[in-house]
């Protein structure tokens, strides 16, 4: 039985807790959160050890791993403190506020041989996994260019409350939305080496950007556009879409379906010339417990399995997520260079 704790019992913390609370090999023993309301209710319904101070929790509770789901600005000190206790760590995305901090944490995790993972859950979506396999198997030939989009209605008016509206806390569309797209591009096409033509736009927010547009260049030569806007009311919920153009065909995919266009049949009778459309119901297998989509269960079960196997190379390591933090910094610099 692995003993765990949760730091930050907000929307993601509670989701992760509920998903792993049903895992046969996991027992949660402690939670820390700054909200009295949250702690009061946890005290009412559970026998967990509860803390307002995560440092105290790390000192007092006996645990094998922690889930850190606090605002991004606090990730560095929390992950550092947990790593010092040799705990395995799952931390929400994005990883860190700056590359220097992130680099230190990556090194610490490596030195301590702790299992480390960051919550870029799109890597665990069955449609996107299938898309990655199509790309790496060369179905659409050499990838020339892609368009990677994310839209949602998260911010529709100016707000002074909530950490997502504050730059210093790690708010903004760049860290909340664009980071998903950057990580997903990295997952599909490998490391990103160049950033150009970046545009950050404020739409309703007072302190942070609401839209990000940029062009990325990968080490393998592939290029692509990132187009992200979290102030688009026409979307019912956050929506991801990618369109990939290759020499032998193209792929258009979202979290529920992919459409593969081939100039010639694949020769193995899997895909025909023209459009091949596949939906999530065909691709997704059941999970032991589902809450808000099987991606979330898959990513946490993977984390637990890696702890059991003592495998520090998770499907989304600190080092993987640090590459996204670097790109975020480059996009900001690229934009600032032309706007100062």
């Amino acid at each position, binding site marked *: 039985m692995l003993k765990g704790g949760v730091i930050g019992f907000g929307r993601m913390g509670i989701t992760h807790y509920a998903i792993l609370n049903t895992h046969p090999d996991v027992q949660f023993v402690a939670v820390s959160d700054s909200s009295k309301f949250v702690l009061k209710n946890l005290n009412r319904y559970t026998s967990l050890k509860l803390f307002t101070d995560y440092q105290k929790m790390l000192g007092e509770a006996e645990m094998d791993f922690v889930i850190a789901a606090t605002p991004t600005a606090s990730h560095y000190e929390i992950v550092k403190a947990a790593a010092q206790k040799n705990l395995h760590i799952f931390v929400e995305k994005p990883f860190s506020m700056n590359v220097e901090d992130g680099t230190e944490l990556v090194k610490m995790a490596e030195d301590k041989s702790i299992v480390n993972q960051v919550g870029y859950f799109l890597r665990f979506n069955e449609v996107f996994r299938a898309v990655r396999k199509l790309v790496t198997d060369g179905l659409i030939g050499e990838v020339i260019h892609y368009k990677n989009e994310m839209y949602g209605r998260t911010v529709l008016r100016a707000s002074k*409350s909530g950490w997502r509206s504050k730059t210093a806390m790690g708010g903004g569309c760049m860290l909340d939305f664009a980071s998903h797209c950057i990580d997903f591009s990295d997952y599909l096409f490998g490391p990103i080496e160049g950033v150009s033509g970046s545009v950050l736009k404020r739409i309703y927010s007072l302190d942070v950007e609401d839209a990000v547009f940029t062009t990325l260049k990968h080490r393998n030569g592939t290029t692509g556009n990132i187009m992200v806007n979290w102030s688009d009311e026409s979307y*019912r919920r956050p929506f991801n879409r990618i369109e990939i153009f290759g020499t032998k065909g193209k792929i258009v995919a979202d979290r*529920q379906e992919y459409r593969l266009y081939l100039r010639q049949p694949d020769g193995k009778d899997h895909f025909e010339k023209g459009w091949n459309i596949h*939906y999530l119901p065909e691709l997704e297998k*059941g*999970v032991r417990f*589902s*809450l808000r989509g099987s991606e979330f269960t898959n990513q946490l079960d993977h984390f637990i399995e890696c702890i059991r196997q003592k495998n520090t190379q998770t499907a989304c390591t600190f080092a993987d997520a640090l590459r996204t933090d670097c790109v975020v910094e480059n996009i900001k610099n690229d934009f600032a260079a032309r706007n100062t």
Partner: protein
Amino acid sequence: MDRIILGDNQFFGISHMSEEKGMEQARKFQDINAIIDVLDTAYGCGIHAFTFSTHDRVQQICDHFRAFPEKYADLQLYPVLPYAHKYANLVNEKGIIGTIMDVVVSNNTASQIAGIIARGGAAMLTQNPTEIMKLLIDAEMKMFRGLNVKVVFLQNIVTDLFLGLGWKDVFRDFATYIEHKYQVRAGFITLNMPRLVDFLLKCGIEEPVVCSAINKVGFQMNPDIASYEETLRNGHFQAMAMSIMAAGAVPPKEAIEYVASFKNIKSIIFGASTRTHIEQTKKLIEQLS
């Protein structure tokens, strides 16, 4: 419970098959009259039972039902609460307490709010989660006032969240409040039916009403289809089936044959937006049941 129920996902841009299809439908049903046309078609075919989330626009549909009481005399509604996406962004912005206060304030008159404050206001709320739940249920149920409600469902994200947390009191309190205040059964929608049925029975909720995807390809059936079939054969509960065609992966006849083979399934919820589709599905369910 009604054998055949028309669902409402198609009206609000929700498609389990394709997000683009969902958005296309949202455009089609932007005009409330387009929704009412489909409801009238179903009603004319003899389908008098509808599920509705508490989407803002359902208020307008309910106003329409209330305006023509004779026409909709046999109407049976199965509300599903809460409409979670409505709250997700509010929680991000204002936190849990802020959201609750917002919902309560926007759904009550000044004198009702004065009453709530007199009973302890926000301080009372933080002390007593059951009270919060009651206020939220009442706020959400308000749009259905004066209409015939059959079962009040707890939406799957909330059901499955509390199932994961394992908080039995929440399920008991929800069921008790719905049954006392609204005099109807409480129902639960889930993506984890076998686990939920087992849990609800352990909560002491007898013969619970549980709605879940049930289809022959196992879509949205966790952990697997075999566990679902086992629970459908042996579980002491009232099952309602949705997503029977697995978002289009199973042809209608096969889908209904599969569901009809389980005697425990009392109701079938399906989504449709054309007369042909509604008539065909109803006919097949009646023939194969």
